[in-house]
C-alpha cells in the first residue's frame, strides 16, 4: 500500500510539472493566425510581397488561401495556385514574413473557353478544333490563336447535305465514300441522281441561281468577341475529266445568338470555274491551291471584310459563329450521270485573332492565411516589422 501511495505522489508531482511546463509555454508562445485580404487582378503569374506578419513564428506557419471571383462577368478561374516562394526570417531564424507566388489561369468571359469544342452540337460533325497542346484557349485577349482542324475517329468531317429543291422527290444526296485521316482526302460520291432546277436554292451558306450540289464541312461553334478576326485557310484539289463542270470552293460562316440560335449567315466563294473560264483546269484544280477567307467582327455588328452576300449587318446579337468549308460543282443539265468527283482538301486552318482591347480583367478577392505558433513578447535583435502587406497583386 505504501508503495502505491508513493507511486501516486510521484505521479501527481509529474502531472504538476507537466502543467507547469504547459503554463510556461503558454506564457511565451501561443497559437495564432494572420489573415490578409487582398485583390488579385488579371491572368498569369506574379511574385508578390513581402507579407510581414508583425509577429514571429518559431517554425514555418501553415499557409492556406481562398479566392472568390468578383462580379458576374469577370470570369471563371480554371486553376489557381498561391504558394510561398520564400520565408523571411530574422537574425534569430524566426519566421517573420513571406514572399508569395501567384498563378491564376483564368478566363475573361463567363464561358470558360474562347473556342467552344462541342462535338455534340451536330451529330454528324466529328471534327474538333485543337488548341496548343490540346488545351482549350481563351481568345479574349490580344494575340493570335491558331488551330488546325483535325478529323476525329473514322468519320470524315464532311457531312451530307440535302439540297433544298422545290420537289421533295428531287433531292441530291452526297455521301462519303471513305473516311479521311488527318490531312487526307475526302471522296464525295453522289448516290442518287436528280435533275437540278435552276431556281434560287440555298445550299450551305451561299444562295446561288442554280443548283450546285456541294458538301460542306462545319466546324464546331466558336465563341466570338468584338473585334475578333477570323481567318480560314485550306488547300483544295479536285480530280475530274469533265470540262463542262464548274466548281466552287468557298468558306461560309453562320451566325448564332447567345442561345446558339441561328440568326444569319455569310458566304464567300473563293473560286469558280466553268467551261468559259480562262482558267485552265490543270492550273486551278489539279494542283493544290491555297484559299483564305478573312472576316473581322465589328463589335457585335457582323463581318466587314471579304464577305459577299447575305450577312447580317448591324446585328448586335452575334455571339457564336460556325465556319464552313464547302466544295461544290455545277454540272450542266445535259451532263448525266453526275460524275463521281474526288475533292482533296487538307491543311484546313483556322486562325482567330483576339480583339485589340481586352474586355476586362478578372478580379478575385483573395484571403491569405498563415497559422502556427507565434512567440509572445518576442522582438528579436531588432524590432519586428509591423504587420504589412500588398493590398493588390497584378498578374501578367
Amino acid at each position, binding site marked *: 500500500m505504501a508503495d502505491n501511495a508513493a507511486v501516486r505522489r510521484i505521479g501527481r508531482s509529474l502531472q504538476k510539472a507537466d502543467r507547469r511546463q504547459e503554463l510556461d509555454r503558454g506564457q511565451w508562445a501561443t497559437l495564432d493566425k494572420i489573415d490578409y485580404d487582398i485583390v488579385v487582378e488579371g491572368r498569369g*503569374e506574379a*511574385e508578390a510581397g513581402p507579407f510581414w506578419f508583425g509577429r514571429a513564428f518559431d517554425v*514555418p506557419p*501553415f*499557409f*492556406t488561401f481562398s479566392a472568390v471571383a468578383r462580379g458576374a462577368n469577370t470570369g471563371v478561374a480554371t*486553376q489557381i*495556385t498561391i*504558394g*510561398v*516562394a*520564400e*520565408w523571411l526570417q530574422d537574425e534569430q531564424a524566426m519566421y517573420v514574413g513571406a514572399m508569395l*507566388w*501567384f*498563378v491564376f*489561369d483564368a478566363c475573361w468571359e463567363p464561358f470558360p473557353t474562347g473556342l467552344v469544342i462541342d462535338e455534340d452540337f451536330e451529330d454528324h460533325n466529328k471534327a474538333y478544333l485543337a488548341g496548343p497542346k490540346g488545351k482549350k484557349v481563351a481568345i479574349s485577349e490580344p494575340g493570335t490563336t491558331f488551330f488546325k482542324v483535325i478529323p476525329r475517329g473514322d468519320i470524315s468531317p464532311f457531312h451530307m447535305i440535302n439540297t433544298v429543291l422545290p420537289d421533295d422527290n428531287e433531292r441530291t444526296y452526297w455521301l462519303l465514300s471513305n473516311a479521311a485521316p488527318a490531312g487526307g482526302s475526302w471522296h464525295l460520291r453522289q448516290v442518287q441522281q436528280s435533275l437540278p432546277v435552276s431556281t434560287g436554292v440555298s445550299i450551305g451558306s451561299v444562295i446561288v441561281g442554280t443548283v450546285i450540289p456541294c458538301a460542306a464541312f462545319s466546324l464546331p461553334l466558336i465563341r466570338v468577341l468584338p473585334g475578333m478576326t477570323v481567318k480560314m485557310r485550306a488547300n483544295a484539289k479536285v480530280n475530274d475529266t469533265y470540262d463542262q463542270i464548274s466548281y466552287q470552293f468557298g468558306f461560309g460562316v453562320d451566325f448564332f445568338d447567345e442561345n446558339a440560335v441561328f440568326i444569319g449567315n455569310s458566304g464567300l466563294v473563293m473560286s469558280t470555274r466553268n467551261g468559259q473560264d480562262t482558267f485552265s483546269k490543270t492550273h486551278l484544280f489539279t494542283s493544290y491551291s491555297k484559299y483564305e477567307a478573312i472576316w473581322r467582327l465589328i463589335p457585335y455588328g457582323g463581318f466587314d471584310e471579304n464577305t459577299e452576300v447575305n450577312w447580317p449587318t448591324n446585328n448586335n446579337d452575334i455571339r457564336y459563329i460556325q465556319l464552313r468549308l464547302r466544295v461544290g460543282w455545277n454540272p450542266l443539265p445535259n451532263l448525266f450521270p453526275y460524275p463521281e468527283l474526288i475533292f482533296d482538301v487538307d491543311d484546313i486552318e483556322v486562325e482567330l485573332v483576339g480583339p485589340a482591347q481586352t474586355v476586362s480583367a478578372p478580379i478575385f478577392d483573395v484571403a491569405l492565411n498563415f497559422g502556427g505558433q507565434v512567440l509572445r513578447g518576442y522582438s528579436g535583435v531588432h524590432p519586428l516589422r509591423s504587420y504589412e502587406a500588398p493590398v493588390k497583386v497584378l498578374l501578367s
Partner: protein
Amino acid sequence: MTSRVGKTYPSIRRAGQQIDLDRGTWAGESLLILSYDTVGAGVIETELLDFGLVFEGPPFFSYGVELQPGHVLVANDFPLVTAGVKEWKITEVEADSQATPFYLGAFLWISIEANTAYHLRFRLSFEGITMRNVEYIRGLSG
C-alpha cells in the same frame, strides 16, 4: 449564475463533471501537419501517410505549398499545383456492425504543372477529433 440543479443535486453536477472529464480523456481536437517534399513536375500518388493519430472520422484536409529553401521561381513557368486525398486508411469494421471506422492515414495525389523541375514542399493539414484511448470505446484493428 450557479445552477440550482447543481446546488440541489451535487451528485448530478459531479456526474456531469465526470462526463466532461471522460470526454477529455478519450477524445480531443487535433491538428496534424505533415511535410511532403517533391522534385519535378507531373502527377504522383503518395505512399501511405500514417497519421500516428486515430481520427474518429475523416479529418478536414487542406494543403499549402512552398519552394524548398535555396530554390527560386522561373519566370513564365510558376508552378500550378493541386493535391487531394485519393484514399483513406481506415480501421476494419464488421459488416453487421453499427460502428464507423477510425481514420489512420491517407494516400494523396499531387499534381504539379510546370516545365521546371521545382523542389517543392507541400504542407498537408489534417484536422479533426482524435481518439486518445480507442480501446476505451472499442477495440482497434487494422
